[in-house]
């Protein structure tokens, strides 16, 4: 599951919402959030705050495109 999730991050065509990503993995959004937190703790992802307020193009995240989280205004990106 976690490896599949990381693969999706690597192959991301662009930003994606938490709900859409959860649906793609056939997961409840709450479960996906738990997985994302686990990957952050393992140092595989980073959580970036307050990206929801800016356009994706203005984000300037240099390490691949993060997935925009719809509920907390935060993004997760590959480390």
């Amino acid at each position, binding site marked *: 599951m976690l490896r599949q999730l990381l693969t999706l991050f690597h192959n991301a065509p662009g930003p994606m919402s938490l709900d859409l990503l959860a649906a793609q993995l056939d997961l409840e959004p709450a479960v996906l959030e738990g997985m994302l937190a*686990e990957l952050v703790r393992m140092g595989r992802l980073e959580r970036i705050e307050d990206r929801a307020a800016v356009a994706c193009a203005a984000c300037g995240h240099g390490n691949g495109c993060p997935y925009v989280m719809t509920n907390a205004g935060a993004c997760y990106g590959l480390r």
Partner: protein
Amino acid sequence: MASKADTGPVVALAGNPNAGKSTIFNALTGGRQHVGNWPGKTVDVTSGTVRWDGGQVTLVDLPGTYSLSAHSLEEVIARDFILEERPDAAIVVADATNLERNLYLAAQVLELGVPVALALNMMDRAEAEGIVIDVALLGRLLGVPVVPTVGGRRQGLLELLRLAVSEAAPHPKVVDYGYEMEQEIAALQPQVAALLGPNAPRYATLKLLEGDKLALQALGAAPEAAALRQQAQEAAARVQAVYGDDVELLVADRRYGFVHGLAHQVVERRAGLRQRSLTDRIDDVVAHRLLGLPIFFLLMALVFKLTADVSAPFVDWIDATVNGVLANWVAAGLTAISAPAWLLSLLVEGVMAGVGGVLMFLPVLLILYFCLALLEDSGYMARAAFVMDRLMHVLGLHGKSFIPLIVGFGCNVPGILATRTLENRRDRILTGLMVPLMSCAARLPVYVIFAAAFFPQQASAVIFGLYLLGIVLAVLTGLLMRRTLFAKTSDSLFVLELPAYRLPAWHGLRIHMWRHSEEFVRKAATLILAASVVVWALLNLPIGVENTEDSVFGRAAGAVAPLFAPLGFGTWQATGSLATGLVAKEVVVSSMAVIYLGDEPAELPEPVDLAADLRTIVVGFGQAVVDSVRIVLSMIPGVNLLGAEAAQANTGLSQALQAQFTPASALAFLVFVLLYAPCVAAMGALKSEFGAKWMLFSFFYLLALAWIAGFVTYQAAGWLLGA
């Protein structure tokens, strides 16, 4: 099953945050709880006893965690308790509406090799949401007893406990980690068991393969340990070569896969019932980006208005009873037996004025703690952390840091201890420095007494303003620290989960309310009693002193008093009261009661008429109840049952203060009390959590901040109020 002779079987209660674990713990243990220090750890663990079926079971409430990965202190505490204390069984409380996420922790607890029973809590809500769980199949797949429960209604709880104690059995090999990994585990596990003992060898082997630092350290320094570390490293490298990823990720990946498959097999959602829940609809408003913050402050204002106004009639009643009727009884009794004057003075002007002066604020605290428990148990406090998340990020913190700050409103000590839930030391220290600025309940009696004396019509606004000032200065302190002492550190990461709203259970509220207030009563009977006697003694030394200003206390306080003259309260009485507040903030009030009321000329006791006095007490209480109800009803827009009456406590001390302070100096005094150095218990907590250096920093920083803020307040208020 091994039982402890004195405690009965010990059962640990584990679960995700907001799964209803504490509700179940409170429902099962009732008031039979105590918070004790876990031997060898600086961590308090709450335990309670359940008497049932002729014996008893000891329940231990572990911190709520999402996993046992040991990345946070809560996870370490929960994991180490099970590993080191080896409870007879563990109950994992899972939220049935969010089963898959909760099963991840259940799988990890099972891997620790302890007998487990699983509670599917909040089953009523799961059913209402169209979630159907095959309980029997889940039990078979996990190999553990599974019991549907509704904690708030106590459904299924005794059955859960019975099965945990009598039928649960260890089932550590719940997850299959794949052929290669299982081969390596099987090869290493006997050596691990030989070195570390029979407790959870599979789990210990997994952690070794993951390269977990604590597990590697636990092996010790023996030559066999070094060889085992080397073997574990080689085994991990082989696994990594096969799968192309490190063992920690592979283990978590397999565990998530297992849990996902399990949930798919046992959970079914009825079509058509998946719709936006009531929680979603409430959150649209209270967790709104723009509305969330004003709603939070409105709610806090309402809490303080309720606390100050509704408690006022009861405060008056206790004051009249203790310092009126009871003091008269004691004085009349002592006079009847021709007791010496000093004893009369000690008991009436020292003990009763001091302890009674503080105890009369018990209703204030009961209502404050009730409101805070209501907000927490309903699920709103998590929203408060959520809406404050953005503000906290300005300080380089996140919403989780707001939780210790909210806890600090009750008492700063648990607020400082609650910083342990934060992941890194920088966050813990920064939050810990902000906590003493949260106005704890012990400061509330000082606010209430001064507000009643000087601002009777705006008392709740003044009190709310002080709380708000504490928050604003905490934010500014955070910003200052962020730009100076903590300028070069980065933010930590955290995902905040919002639990569903729920109707708080009355017994849970009652336990929360009383647990904190009980501490206040205990303090009144010990610390405040002792402080009152000491202050009284110092006020009467040297023996035969005529004027209290010439007493030891008066002279010592008078020497420091000029420092506070620019703040408007440079008197020995105010300075002395503030100094005693370092013991505990409530002592400021008891000292003032001893100083100001004890200084009044002693009156001869009135003749005791027991029947009339008892009637006065009972009728007074009834009137206080009626007045409080009228005050509550008058808060409803359009309803006014109060007329022109002020709903504020008006005690003897309030009247005495009016002669000593001006409105401007009273405001400055309140601001100083809000901000100045925390009490000894809070300083002790700061020292134990962050070290002596940070404790001293906090002490002097807050003292300086209080002086500056008090000075500005006095000058500004003097200019505005013309006093």
